[in-house]
């Protein structure tokens, strides 16, 4: 761990924290990119290989049990956060999930609640603050934790403060549980990270934009106001054209070039 911190310190020194692309949402791009590179290196060297071994070596049922166990513990504060956001029914749902899975689910190893139709939610303090109207703030990449924003970082401090695993004693057991949770999470993301590798021209930018969109979607529970995509960016002076909501194709002239012809042919073949 001390080695890791040393590496982190050296990176901090090495990076001039200069902005490169000039994206208004990412004023610390220079720093963030260094940190992203650092995280990638740690991932390639340690976390990813361990996660691969975990995924290939352990029976599916064990992996599911691990996932369920930590997911169940998380339901407690997902419920609290729903309550803080005034979503009483959702909060009750999450409380029921915890009650069901902790008892008949064998301390959370089985997820009977989902079978019973009690939906799993995704909430945290960052989302609660967002719901209360706090904007994202600058994008920040933390060592090991990865993508975040100013708001989500503060939220994350609260998340960790109340996290049952991080508060578990003795410390050795706590560390072991944290490690298993981290490896399990990484294993679940193996396919996704391979996709990112193939999809992105610039992985840093792709992941940043995906993170910011994803968080916005979560704050609004999947229904962000469609037209006001730049809601959180209204105070920005940056190039808004890059982040403005997607226009419909009809707003331009229909250039159905390339595929148009083929489609026309198909239309004749199987059109009714």
């Amino acid at each position, binding site marked *: 761990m001390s080695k890791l911190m040393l590496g982190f310190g050296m990176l901090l020194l090495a990076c001039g924290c200069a902005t490169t692309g000039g994206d208004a949402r990412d004023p610390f791009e220079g720093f963030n990119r260094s940190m992203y590179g650092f995280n990638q290196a740690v991932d390639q060297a340690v*976390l990813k290989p361990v996660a691969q071994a975990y995924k290939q070596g352990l029976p599916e049922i064990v992996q*599911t049990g691990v996932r369920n166990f930590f997911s169940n513990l998380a339901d407690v504060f997902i419920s609290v956060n729903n309550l803080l956001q005034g979503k009483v029914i959702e909060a009750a749902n999450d409380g029921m999930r915890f009650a069901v899975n902790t008892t008949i689910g064998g301390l959370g190893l089985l997820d009977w609640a*989902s079978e019973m139709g009690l939906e799993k939610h995704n909430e945290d303090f960052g989302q609660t603050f967002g719901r209360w109207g706090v904007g994202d703030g600058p994008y920040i990449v933390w060592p090991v934790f*990865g993508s975040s924003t100013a708001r989500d970082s503060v939220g994350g401090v609260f998340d960790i403060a109340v996290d049952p695993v991080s508060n578990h004693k003795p410390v050795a057991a706590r560390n072991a549980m944290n490690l298993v949770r981290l490896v399990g999470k990484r294993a679940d993301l193996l396919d996704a990270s391979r996709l990112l590798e193939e999809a992105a*021209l610039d992985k840093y930018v792709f992941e940043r934009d995906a993170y910011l969109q994803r968080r916005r979607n979560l704050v609004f529970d999947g229904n962000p106001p469609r037209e006001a995509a730049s809601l959180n960016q209204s105070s920005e002076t940056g190039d808004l054209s890059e982040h403005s909501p997607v226009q419909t194709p009809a707003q331009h002239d229909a250039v*159905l070039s390339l595929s148009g012809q083929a489609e026309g042919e198909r*239309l004749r073949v199987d059109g009714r």
Partner: protein
Amino acid sequence: MVGRALLAVVAVVSLIAAGSTLAQDGAPDVLVKTVTLEIIDLIAKDKDLQSGDQKKIVAVIESKILPHFNFAAMTRLAVATNWEKSTAEQRKQLTEEFKTLLVRTYSSALSTYRNQRFDFRPLRAKPTDTDVTVQVKISQGSREAVSLEYDMEKTPYGWKVYDVRIAGVSLVASYRTEFANEIRAHGVDGLIKSLVAKNQGQGLRAERR
């Protein structure tokens, strides 16, 4: 560490949408459902597809999925304001390369498909609407469901997808910043060049597999 956002990308899996045999004037949600089920069925029956045979997967995507995407529109939306500054030839190349990139990404996603459950949400739109969003929820075991949304527009050739949002992450918007950065640094031709390089690199990797 790779971040929660990546969860989203995993659902690219289900870019397996939109297929072929359907009536061109059918409802957009019916179209998405028919095609998705058709592809799931194909995978279930075909061992090669399950084991990730890239050639076969690409063939399925090209015959079943591509016809329902308006790549010209997707590319134009991703290139945004720089589209106006591009020549006809550049636009054609951009569209072609972007299409190739998406097909390769999809084919990779398709091979990660593992018995997810698809829940087709009822369409909330008036029959007269020409621009709709079709929502599909994908669940796998006890994991949080991932939403997949297709923004579709009615065209003379039927309903066409012009953006896909996976867990709230728009494909078009995700590429927009990347494209803008590349064009700012190296111009439109620079972007075309890096798309070509990306596609060729992936081609090599796919063959090596």
